């Protein structure tokens, strides 16, 4: 178990190093930030001063060496835009995203398990069909479209919810709804499929032969065995949520890491791009290990 975690960790660290290297060099292909940080009418000297102030006048490999050196001292660089440590910026935004991601993935998984199991238990029924189409329809709409329509309907039209922002629990409802739609739609399919194949498994025959009640067969036996594929897909979906729900964060003004990253990318705030990627990649790596441990917990046959 420990050796497994150790091995996974070393793989992940390799991947993160590779990722950071790639990000470092590729972002520097996207142009000179000085054009963006100085007014259009700034003089050439001002630009040169800006470049040397921020170390952008050095050759790229030299900048990379500097970056690595600083990294070893846990110095992740300064944000060009925000006048403060890039890591501080990233770490301030990350919890906001994490909160959203956790609630969204928990909610969508829980709902999907409920709806998907019932649909599988009554495969072919009207409920099954409606649940299938409705959940897929939710998953098939562009999220920004749903978000804006949601605001226009619920906040402007009906005045039930605040349009956007953070603060009260009412502010959570629409972002969570939008974030939940797609994972929910996909997970309902996964749950239904896994449940159908679990319900056709030999051990279900055994349970029936034992005289186990139907609800217990569905939720105790079939669902319990379906959890593995569900966890796999939910884990993948959680990964993409942790990476930042850019669209939702942008529209609802949620100060998360996805919005931060896209701003940093567009503004060529390299240190922030690197720091956000470091934070999210680490989170994803921890998440992946957690999913693996969850596997072992859910299926006694899996041992690392």
């Amino acid at each position, binding site marked *: 178990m420990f050796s497994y975690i150790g091995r996974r960790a070393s793989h992940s660290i390799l991947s993160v190093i590779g990722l950071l290297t790639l990000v470092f060099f590729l972002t520097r292909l996207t142009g000179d930030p000085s054009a963006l940080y100085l007014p259009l009418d700034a003089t050439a000297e001002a630009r040169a001063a800006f470049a040397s102030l921020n170390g952008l006048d050095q050759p790229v490999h030299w900048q990379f060496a500097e970056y690595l050196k600083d990294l070893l001292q846990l110095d992740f660089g300064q944000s060009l835009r925000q006048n403060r440590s890039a890591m501080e910026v990233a770490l301030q935004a990350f919890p906001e995203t994490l909160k959203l991601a956790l609630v969204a993935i928990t909610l969508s998984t829980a709902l999907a398990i409920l709806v998907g199991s019932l649909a599988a238990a009554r495969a072919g029924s009207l409920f099954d069909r409606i649940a299938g189409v409705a959940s897929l329809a939710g998953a098939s709409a562009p999220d920004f479209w749903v978000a804006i329509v949601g605001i226009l309907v619920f906040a402007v039209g009906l005045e039930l919810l605040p349009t956007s922002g953070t603060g009260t629990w009412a502010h959570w409802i629409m972002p969570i709804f939008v974030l939940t739609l797609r994972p929910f739609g996909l997970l309902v399919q996964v749950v239904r499929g896994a449940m159908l194949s679990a319900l056709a498994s030999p051990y279900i025959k055994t*349970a029936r032969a034992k005289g*186990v*009640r139907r609800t217990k067969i569905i939720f105790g036996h079939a669902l319990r065995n379906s959890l593995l594929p569900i966890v796999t897909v939910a884990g993948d979906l959680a990964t993409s949520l942790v990476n930042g729900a850019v669209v939702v964060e942008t529209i609802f003004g949620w100060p998360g890491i996805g919005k931060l990253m896209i701003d940093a990318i567009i503004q060529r705030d390299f240190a922030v791009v690197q720091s956000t990627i470091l934070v999210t990649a680490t989170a994803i790596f921890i998440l992946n290990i957690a999913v693996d441990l969850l596997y072992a917990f859910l299926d*006694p*046959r899996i041992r690392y």
Partner: protein
Amino acid sequence: MKNVGNPILKVEGLTVDFLSNDEPVRAVDNVSFHVNRGETLVILGESGSGKSVSTSTVMDLIDCPPGDIVAGSCLFDGTELSRLDADARRNINGRRIAMIFQDPLAYLNPVYTVGRQIEEVYESHGEAGGREARARAMELLQRVGIPEPETRIDYYPHQFSGGQRQRIMIAMAIALKPDILIADEPTTALDVSVQAQILDLLRDLQRETGMALILITHDLEVAASMADRIIVMSAGKVVETGPAREVFSNPKHAYTCRLISASPDGDPAEASNKRATKIGSETLLKVEHLTKEYALSSGAFAPKRRFKAVDDVSFEVRRGETLGIVGESGSGKSSIARMLLRLSDPSSGKALFSGEDVFEMGGKTLMAFRRKVQMVFQDPFGSMNPRMTVRSIISEPWAIHRDILPRHQWKERVAELLELVGLKPDHADRYPHQFSGGQRQRIAIARALASEPELIVCDEAVSALDVSIQAQVIDLLADLRTRLGLSYIFITHDLPIVRQFADRILVMKQGKVVEEGDTATLFRAPRHEYTRGLLQAVPKPKWLMSENEPPAEGADVFWSDRPRSGSFSG
């Protein structure tokens, strides 16, 4: 004790269809049978005969649709089952009728401890819960012979051996002392010696509880050793029924006759053997001190243990000879085959093929060797790519070894080979799944022959086939040996089959060769205790055993010679 009172279960005119786009498939056609308390009814039939479907109908395990119960009644203890509602039928399951299945690993829920799964029987029927259920589960485990039940109760199914898992299934089934126990091929996946133990356990439990036992099997010996009465099914119909002894000694229906005569040793073995007539003196393959070691890691900090799957094995195969390698699962026999075919590397040892060490070969020599040695695998379906036509399967050796046959002759040669193994040339454009098991194995043999080999390694090549098919495939192999001068290494766990076919036999146990000798001698006078045990584990007919007496050793010459018919190796 036998045939007392009214039948506890009476099935009349049961007809079950499986629906699909075309005409419904009739799985069970007008089947009637009954079973009395304390009696053992055996339903005998080959795969696809509908023998499981009829009992599953009794247990309400058929999903409708796609199942469709067309007609028939199931009278259980005076109650018509089809009139009961779902909950009432659920209540009968497990409490009054219980069932165990062929493959306990698949039929036990992998994510729950066995204790919990046994306790569930009590809980589902409101009999006991919590501590009490656990205590009773522990008692049951003890009763069915699981060692250390206090600790093993918290183990998961995958942590038990095949035999133990079947014992656990049995424990679950007898938890509420049912009136009927339905056992669906309960020993098919097990080794001979384990099979004997499980059958003994079932007999003992039946004696203790007085339950009726319905045993479903395709295995003649198992049927004979358990049955009071027997019904024989074929293609969904009951073709013969009667007291066991009568059916066996005097089969009336053509199907039953065929079934009994098809078993590999239906006639006295020595007379009908299919052994080689001419064995050359030239040594084709000489294996010396072959050893295969695996390192087992049992935990992060535990030292690595080493495990010898094959331990210092030496033998020879002469040109034209058939060498049988016999052993139970885990004896290392398949590891030898894999190493000889260079599918895995040996830890040490040599294998000289025509004087050259197989394990040292590389490049061209290895390619030449691969041509000369071919393998026929246990599962003819698994060993063929389902996406390839028979033609491309058989011609694959020519695609790999470009010098065997020019491409324009492939078609013709495939047709020849198909005819050689008893199939039609126009089968070449079909896919493997369109053939029956026996036909598939013929295709596999045709593929093996395509590269004009000198030695064919058959790894449990007929074990997955029905009895009647086994004999045909063995006949084919023997015929090919005579016609093409082949040599075989024939690996099996099934003694009677090698007895017919092999010239010499190697008995293996836990990676070691325990006995070696020519076939007739080995069967007549087995020297090693293990070999004797194997021979004796073959079940004896029930009517030759006295009550309360464990099966006698070598009780009857005819039946002790009578082999077990087809079975799966574990």
